[in-house]
């Protein structure tokens, strides 16, 4: 998987950890690599979860060329079907801040800060924040961040529901790997379908969402993972050897 110009990829058991090859990039730099990477992740049956390593900090700027200014990175991240985690450190602003919003589990260091100041730019440009942030931290807090450009620190980020947990800089990667290993211990079919049901279900009427949940569950009925897990339960054995089939 080392065919990317802007990503460094490491494999951990049934997961991958992705880092940017430099900390300061433009959205169009990342877009084409990320597009390719998302497809690779989605169609690789050996990848059950994905983590982004931003523990050295990261910044994403708008494309210099106006033709590429509307390329959406967050839509690509939203398209990753497998659970996504990220480890964050430092000052996270604007496009970089938007990039982490679609992820499923976010860990940061004590000295991380988060802000959006697009409102003060002449060329107001958002990549999902106006839609994702209110869903994550609630409408009032999202308005404060987007309309007033306020900075929040790591503790506020936890209390707002933006960050799952805070740790120190030297422990952040270990904690992320620990969470990554926890989720790849579960059946990848179950985690992907659960993620799909939560994310897509939020966009359709609840009753339709509940029926979709039934449909996804019915697809799982025929999977080997489920049949073996239920048989193990009936035989009072633990089952931790999922194959994703």
């Amino acid at each position: 998987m080392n065919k990317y110009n802007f990503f460094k990829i490491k494999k951990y058991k049934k997961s991958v950890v992705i880092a940017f090859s430099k900390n300061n990039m433009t959205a169009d730099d990342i877009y084409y690599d990320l597009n390719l990477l998302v497809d690779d992740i989605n169609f690789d049956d050996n990848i059950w979860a994905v983590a982004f390593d931003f523990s050295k900090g990261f910044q994403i700027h708008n494309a210099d060329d106006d033709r590429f200014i509307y390329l959406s990175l967050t839509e690509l991240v939203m398209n990753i079907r497998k659970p996504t985690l990220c480890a964050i450190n430092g000052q996270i602003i604007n496009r970089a801040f938007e990039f982490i919003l679609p992820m499923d589990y976010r860990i940061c260091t004590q000295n991380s800060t988060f802000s959006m100041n697009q409102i003060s730019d002449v060329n107001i440009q958002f990549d999902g924040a106006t839609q994702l942030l209110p869903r994550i931290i609630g409408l009032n807090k999202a308005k404060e961040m987007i309309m007033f450009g306020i900075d929040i620190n790591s503790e506020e980020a936890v209390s707002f529901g933006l960050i799952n947990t805070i740790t120190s800089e030297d422990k952040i990667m270990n904690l992320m790997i620990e969470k990554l290993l926890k989720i790849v211990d579960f059946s990848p079919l179950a985690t992907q379908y659960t993620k799909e049901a939560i994310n897509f279900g939020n966009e359709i009427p609840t009753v339709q969402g509940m029926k979709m949940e039934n449909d996804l569950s019915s697809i799982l009925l025929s999977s080997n993972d489920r049949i073996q897990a239920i048989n193990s339960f009936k035989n009072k054995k633990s089952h931790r050897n999922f194959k994703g089939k």
Partner: protein
Amino acid sequence: MPWEYIKYNKKNNIAHIELDNSSKKNSFNIIMREELKEVINAISVDNDIKVLIFSSTSENFSSGADLSEFNTFPSIVKSNQIAKYKNLWIDLYQFEKPIISLTKGWAIGSGFELLMLSDFVFAHTSSKFLMPEVQWSLIPISGGTQTFVNKIKDLYVKEILLFSEELNADKALKIGLVNCIFEDYSELVNHVFIYAEKISSIDTARLIKIKKLLNFSTEKNIYFGKRLEEIYSRSL
């Protein structure tokens, strides 16, 4: 009418259903779900009843679906049809009158999801909550992937459903899954019934309309919002 796995009482405009399958940790089996569906449909058209309370007869609220019944279905198509079109949980989501649940001990899987289909949840300090589905290569099937999102922040939904993280009563209160916790169980029961009586004193038609509006407020579409965001950005 005697029920095998539930107890049902009706008094002063309040319906009270107790989950009663203590030999199997109050798990939901097929018969229990059918009994619940029948009672709930009857309550929904009973004009005397203004509010419904759920609780359990044993030390745990419910251990969720009875996994011993899994892998015994006649066919996937049949199973899907029953799940979709005879769905107790959809009936509960669409149940028009207020639902109050009282929980203690474990609320696991469908038991936890039943609490999320309730309008108010009061918990004993012994309460613990878990969605273990991903551990057994299952996904929630009692509306969990839909109802949690409506009640708590996205981040906690993923912690609970994707990472299968266990919660205690304090954390459940902190993140907004339960309305209130009580150390003294009899005080909790007392509080729930006082609360139910208070609600039942409000005009039923008004309550039904307000509940529908509040539930409707959670129906939204992010892709439309995302497109609108892009259109607005381009036009600035």
